[in-house]
């Protein structure tokens, strides 16, 4: 302890809070709009349907949407020696939307960091096979905080064939390699026609290509309805995407 300097105690509790979690999978994609929230939420749903103990942590604090994908309207947590995630469709879920409803939450970087620390310090995830993290877009504070605070993190990258996305994902892969973050692989979302840019990027970067989720024009109507999500191409593509 540095003499004369007070310390924030929250980071010291994080390891204990996650001790029962076997895997921490961050669903990342450096560009916005590639479908991270749909992939994160549907992956959690598919794993829960397989009988796995699954957590879902929406880290997009300023624009949370996992609750929209899964049709969860309210989930104020129970408070008991910390907070217990809201359990819905078999998924243990935490989102700031459960606290703020439809109100906008403007957070600068330091406030987002503090929000992450607080939730990691007080949430009792219990025993989980997989904790899915819906990472926010970009390579800013929250992404870097998660990499720093959760050394067991594995990343599942989502991209699509757009040139602006490919460029961004390539840079993100380079950074994650430099930071020694294990990458499960690269998943193509919203696949159209004969595009192979994501697959070729995975090959060039030396990371596993996890397959393509076809563009589904009916997906919008399935959002918020888990029964329809279960019938979607996204769900089918994600059922076996996570290697053991």
């Amino acid at each position, binding site marked *: 302890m540095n003499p004369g300097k007070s310390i924030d105690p929250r980071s010291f509790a994080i390891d204990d809070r996650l001790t029962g979690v076997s895997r921490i999978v961050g669903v990342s994609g450096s560009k916005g709009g590639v479908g991270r929230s749909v992939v994160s939420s549907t992956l959690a749903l598919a794993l829960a349907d397989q009988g796995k103990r699954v957590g879902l942590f929406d880290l997009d604090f300023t624009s949370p949407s996992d609750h929209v994908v899964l049709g969860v309207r309210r989930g104020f*947590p129970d408070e008991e020696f910390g907070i217990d995630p809201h359990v819905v469709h078999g998924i243990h879920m935490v989102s700031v939307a459960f606290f703020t409803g439809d109100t906008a939450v403007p957070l600068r970087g330091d406030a987002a960091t503090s929000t992450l620390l607080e939730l990691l*310090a007080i949430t009792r995830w219990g025993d989980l096979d997989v904790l899915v993290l819906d990472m926010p877009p970009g390579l800013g504070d929250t992404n870097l905080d998660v990499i720093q605070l959760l050394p067991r993190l594995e990343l599942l990258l989502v991209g699509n064939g757009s040139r602006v996305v490919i460029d961004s994902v390539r840079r993100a892969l380079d950074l994650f390699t430099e930071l020694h973050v294990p990458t499960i692989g690269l998943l193509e979302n919203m696949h159209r026609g004969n595009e192979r840019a994501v697959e070729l990027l995975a090959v060039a970067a030396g990371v596993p290509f996890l397959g393509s989720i076809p563009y589904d024009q009916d997906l919008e109507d399935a959002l918020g309805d888990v029964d329809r999500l279960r019938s979607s191409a996204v769900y089918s593509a994600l059922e076996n995407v996570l290697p053991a």
Partner: protein
Amino acid sequence: MHELALADSVLKAALSAADDAGMDRIDRIVVKIGELQQIERELFEFSLTTVLPAMDARLAGVKFDLSEELVRFECRSCGTDYGRDEAGIESDGDQGEAIHFIPELSHAFARCPSCGSPDFEIRAGRGITLERIVGSGEDESG
């Protein structure tokens, strides 16, 4: 009762600091409690003094100094310095409860009393801070 989780983090941080300082016993832990989080002080103190010290022998007989700090916001738009009462946060109900769990969610509810901006910095009185520890055979460090 998430005060227990916060108290647990304070003691874990104190034990880590004791490790760094080579202390074999912690005699006193000084903690600052920020107004914004609206911690139930009795519950927090009970967690510190009764429930948790059994976690480590170095905490046997430890005393706690708890002090409270008023919250101060500074508006990033107009520079106004203001407190909780002026921020328009509802103390009871969902707003108070949300801020109790995550003080940063005050950004959803608090507004500058001068210009109405939600863009502010929490300059003081946010939540729990470990100020310093005093251990056996050591000078105060913290």
